C-alpha cells in the first residue's frame, strides 16, 4: 500500500490564532494524510528542522499576524539550504492579494485565504505533492 502523504502544519511567528491551523490539520487527516502539528510560536528554523526530521512531503503554514512577508520567504530559503526544496510549501491566513503575488514569487506554491473550503486545500496538495 502506498504511504499516505505526510504534512507538517506549522504556526510561524508570535501569532496565537490557531483555529485555522487546527481545522486544516483535521481536514487533511480526514482526507487520509498523516499530519504533524507544531503548536504555536515556531521560528522558521524550528519549522524547517521539524519538516526534515519528520520527513514530510508538505509544509503548510498558517499565519494571521501580518508577518508573512518576512517569515515565509525565510522558511523557503531554509528548506532549500536543507536540500528539502522538493517539499510542497503552502500557506493560509489573512494575507492580502498583492502579497500573494510576492509570496508565490518567493516559493510559496499556494496561499489560501479566509473562506477557502478545506477540500480545495486537500485537492491542491494531492495534485501538487511530489512523491
Amino acid at each position, binding site marked *: 500500500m502506498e504511504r499516505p502523504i505526510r504534512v507538517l*502544519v506549522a504556526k510561524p*511567528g*508570535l*501569532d*496565537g*490564532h*490557531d*483555529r485555522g491551523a*487546527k*481545522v486544516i*490539520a*483535521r*481536514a487533511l*487527516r480526514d482526507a487520509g494524510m498523516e*499530519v504533524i*502539528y*507544531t*503548536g*504555536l*510560536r515556531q*521560528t522558521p528554523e524550528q519549522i524547517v528542522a521539524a519538516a526534515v526530521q519528520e520527513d514530510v512531503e508538505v509544509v503548510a503554514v498558517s499565519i494571521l*499576524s*501580518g*508577518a508573512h*512577508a*518576512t*517569515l515565509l520567504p525565510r522558511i523557503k530559503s531554509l528548506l532549500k539550504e536543507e536540500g528539502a526544496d522538493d517539499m510542497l510549501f503552502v500557506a493560509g491566513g*489573512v494575507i*492580502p*492579494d*498583492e502579497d500573494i503575488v510576492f509570496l508565490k514569487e518567493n516559493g510559496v506554491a499556494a496561499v489560501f*485565504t*479566509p*473562506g477557502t*473550503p*478545506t*477540500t480545495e486545500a486537500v485537492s491542491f496538495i494531492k495534485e501538487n505533492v511530489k512523491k
Partner: protein
Amino acid sequence: MNKEQRQAFQEVMEKYDERVERNLTRFPERRSVFYTASKAEVNRLYTPLDVEELDVIEDIGVPGSYPFTRGVQPNMYRGRLWTMRMYAGFATAEESNKRYKFLLDQGQSGLSVAFDLPTQIGYDSDHVLAEGEVGKVGVAIDSLKDMETLFDGIPLDKVSTSMTINAPASILLAMYIAVGEKQGVPKAKLRGTIQNDILKEYIARGTYIFPTDPSMRLITDIFAYCSKEVPSWNTISISGYHIREAGSTAAQEVGFTLADGIAYVEAALEAGLEIDSFAPRLSFFFNAHNDLLEEVAKFRAARRLWARIMKERFGAKDPKSMMMKFHTQTGGSTLTAQQTENNIVRVAIQTLAAVLGGTQSLHTNSKDEALALPTEESVQTALRTQQIVAYESGVTNTVDPLAGSYYIEAKTKEIEDEAMDYIQRIDDMGGAPRAIDAGFIQREIMDAAYRYQVDIEKGDNIVVGVNKYHVDEPSPKGLLRVDLSVGESQKAKLKALREERDNEAVDAALEKLRVVCQGDENVMPAIIEAVKTYATLGEIADVMRDVFGEYQQSVII
C-alpha cells in the same frame, strides 16, 4: 396560566400542530431540523408552555436588581448609552496616538489599545522573535517613553482606556500609572480596564508567557494593589470573545468564560482578599455573532448565571459583586474576505445583538478585517453603525425589549443550563486551570469549530458570498499596510534609550523586582519603580521569566 387556561391552550396547540403537519406533505419546510449558529436545535414555535418553569421574579426580575437577567442598570440606555470603544493601534506610538485623536474627534467615548505581538508576549522590538511582527497587529511599546508618546495630548483623567494586554498586564498598567503621574493625574482618578485574563490565552488566544501558578499570582497581586490604589480600574476582563473566535458555541462561550471567572475569584480568595473588595471590579468581554436571538439570550444567560454564582457559591453581599458588566466585540471570524461590503451588514446585526443583550461597551469590526487591519474610512463606518443603532433604531428607548419573548426566555434558560453543566464538569476536574492543562476545554472548542467548518462545506451552513451567491471579484484596493520600517525605527529608539537613561538605576530596580518575584510581596510597586527608570518591557519580563519560568503549550488538534 391556571389549569383551565393551560388545558385550553394545549388544545389550541394540538390543532396548530395538526394543521402544520398536514401542510408539510404538500409544502415541506426548507430543512428537516433547524439549528442556531451554535448548532442548537430550534423549535418551530415557542409558546407559554416553554417558559412555564420560569419565575418572573426569581429568574427574570427587573433591570438593575438581582439576578440582573434584564441588565445591570435600572434604566439602561435611557440614562447613558454604551461606551463606543474601537480597538485600535498599529505601527508606532506616534501613529496610534493620531488614530486615537481621530476617534475621539469622531465621537468615540473611550480608548481601546491594541498592542503588537512582541509587546503582548513581553519582547522588546529588537528581540529576534520580534522580527517581522513589530507594529503589525497593534502598537509597539518598549518602554515608558513609547507610552508617554501614545497618550500625548490625551488627558488620562478625561478618558477611560481599555488595554488588551494579558501576560505582561502588570507592566503596561504600571506604565499607564506612570504616564498619569507625569500628567498630574493621581492613580485614584484613572479609569479603564486591562484584559489580564491569562486562562483564555492558554485556551484560545496564545499570548501567554509564564506558567499557570505564577500567572495567577500576578493577577491576584493586581487585584490587591488596585483595590487600594487604583479603585476605579477594572482589573480584569474575563474574556469569552477569543473562545468564541476559536470556534466554540454560544453556550461554551458562557460556560468556559465563567469557569475562568470562578478560577480568578478562588485564587483571590485564597490570596486572602475579601470577596466584595475585588469582585465589583471584575468585568467580562463577549463576542457578538450573527444569530441575533441566540446571542441576546446568551448575554442574558451569562448575567443571570454569574449573579447566582457570586451570591450562592461565593457569598458576595454587595450587589455590585453580582453584576456582570461586559464589553462586546462583533465576531471577527464571521467576516468574509469575499464581497467585503456584506460585512457591514453582519456587523450591524451583531451590534443589535450586543445592544439588545445589554452591553456596557462595544467595538464594531470593520468590513476589511478579513484581509488586513482596517483603514480609517472603514473604521468610521463601523463606528457609525453603532451610532445608527443608538440614535435611529429605537431599540434603546426601553430596557431589555426582548424579555418575555417565549423564544428568548426559553433560550436564555437553555444556555444557562448548558453553561452550568460545563462549569460542573470543569469543577470535577479541579477547576479551569486543571481542565486547561488536561486539554479538555481546547478539545471541546476544536470539536465545535471543526463541526462548523464541515457544515459549511456540506452546505448545511450558508455563508453569503462564500458558499452561496459567490461572484468573481477584483481584489480589494487601498488596504492598510504597516511597513517594515516600524521595526527599524523602534530598534533605533531602543538603542538611544539604553544610552540616555541611568542604567545603574535600571539595574537596581530590576534587581529589586527579582527579589520581590522570588518572595510573596505584591509585585506592582516594584514594577512601577522599574518602568519609571525606563527599564524596557522586555527587560522587566525577562526578570520575571527567569524567576517564574515559561508556559509549555500542550498541542491538541
